C-alpha cells in the first residue's frame, strides 16, 4: 500500500497532474477580475463561486492521467496478477491524487482570494470548503478516470460524466462563500464529499476490473 501510494505521488509530481490544475486554477483567478472589472464589492460577492468553478474545472484536467496510462502499460494487470484488489489500488490512487490536488489548491486559493478581493472571513470559509470538497472532487475524478479508461475520446466524455455529478459539491461549496447559512452548506458539502469518497474505491475498482475483459 505504501509502495502504491508513493508511486502515485511520484507520478503526480512528475506527470504534471499536480502542477497543471494548479496553474489552471490560478489562471482563472487572474482572468476573472479582467472579465468582471475592478469592482471590489462585486468581485468579493462573486469571487467565491468563481473560484469553486475554477476548482471544479481544474479537477477535470488530470482525469486522463489517473488510470489510463497504468492500463495501457499493463500495470493494472500486473497488480491483479499479484492478487492486489482493484479497490485497494483505487484507494491508493484516491489518496495519492487528493494529496497532489487538494492541499496545493488550498494554497493557491490564498493568492486567488487576494485577486478576487475576498475579505478574511470569506477566505477562511473558502479554505474550509476546499478542505471538505476537494476529496469529493478527487474521488469523482478517479471514478470518471476509471470509467473512461480504454476509450479514445476521453476528454469530452469525462467532462460530460463528471460535471453533472459535481453539482452538489459546487452548490454547497459556493454556498459556503455566499451570504449566511454557511454552516448548513458546510455540512451538506462534507456529506456530498464523504459520499463520493466512500463509493469511489468500489466504483473505480469495478470499472478497472471491467475494462480488463
Amino acid at each position: 500500500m505504501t509502495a502504491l501510494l508513493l508511486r502515485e505521488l511520484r507520478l503526480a509530481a512528475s506527470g504534471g497532474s499536480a502542477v497543471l490544475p494548479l496553474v489552471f486554477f490560478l489562471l482563472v483567478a487572474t482572468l476573472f477580475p479582467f472579465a468582471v472589472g475592478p469592482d471590489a464589492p462585486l468581485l468579493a460577492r462573486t469571487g467565491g463561486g468563481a473560484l469553486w468553478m475554477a476548482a471544479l474545472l481544474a479537477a477535470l484536467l488530470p482525469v486522463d492521467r489517473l488510470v489510463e496510462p497504468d492500463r495501457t502499460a499493463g500495470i493494472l494487470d500486473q497488480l491483479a496478477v499479484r492478487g492486489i484488489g482493484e479497490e485497494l489500488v483505487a484507494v491508493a490512487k484516491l489518496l495519492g491524487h487528493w494529496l497532489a490536488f487538494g492541499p496545493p489548491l488550498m494554497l493557491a486559493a490564498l493568492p486567488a482570494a487576494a485577486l478576487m478581493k475576498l475579505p478574511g472571513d470569506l477566505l477562511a470559509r473558502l479554505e474550509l470548503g476546499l478542505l471538505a470538497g476537494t476529496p469529493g472532487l478527487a474521488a469523482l475524478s478517479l471514478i470518471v478516470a476509471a470509467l473512461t479508461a480504454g476509450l479514445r475520446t476521453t476528454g469530452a466524455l469525462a467532462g460530460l460524466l463528471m460535471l453533472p455529478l459535481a453539482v452538489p459539491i459546487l452548490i454547497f461549496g459556493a454556498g459556503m462563500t455566499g451570504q449566511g447559512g454557511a454552516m448548513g452548506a458546510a455540512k451538506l458539502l462534507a456529506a456530498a464529499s464523504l459520499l463520493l469518497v466512500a463509493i469511489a474505491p468500489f466504483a473505480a475498482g469495478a470499472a478497472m476490473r471491467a475494462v480488463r475483459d
Partner: protein
Amino acid sequence: MSGAPLLRMEGVACLRGGRLLFEGLDLALEPGEAALVTGPNGAGKSSLIRVAAGLLRAAAGTVERSGGGALADESLALDPKLPLARALGFWSRLDGGDPQAALAAMGLVPLAAVPVRMLSTGQRKRAALARVVAAGAPLWLLDEPANGLDADGEARLAAAIDAHRRGGGAILAASHQPLPLDGAKRVTL
C-alpha cells in the same frame, strides 16, 4: 513434493468477442513442469495465458493456482520515465524479490540507470523477463518470451527457465519460436 499442482485448468473454455477460441482444455502443472502453447495467430494463446493468470474469466471450467504467478506479456508494466532499476524496484517492494539479481540474470546491469522509455525492443523484453525473475513466484506465465531477443538474450532466457524449473517452479509459455523447455507438455490450440 506436495503434490498440489501450481496450476490446474479443467475443461476451460474461452470466449472472446462472442467467438469461442477453445474449449475443454485440461492442463496441470506440477513443480518443475512446463507447458508450451502453440497455435496460429488468433488461436487464443495469449488469452489462455491471461486466463491462467486470472485476468480473464474462463467461459467454462475451473482454473486454480496455488502460490503466486508472474506474467510477462506484450506490455512492459514498468514506469517509462524511471531508470530501469528503480522501475523494477517498485515491483520488488511489492513482491519482496531482489531486482539486482534479476537484472544480472538478464544481462541488464549496465542499463540499470537508463530510463525505461529509452530501451530497445529486445532490451524491453529482457526487462519484462527480469521483472518475472524478480517476482519470485512459483508459476511463470510467458507470452512470446523470446520475441525480439538476440542470441545472448535467448541463452539467458534458457538459463533463467532452467534455474526456475530446477528450483521447483513451473512454466506456461506461448511461443512461435522454439523454447528450451525439455519435456514440456504440448498444448496445441
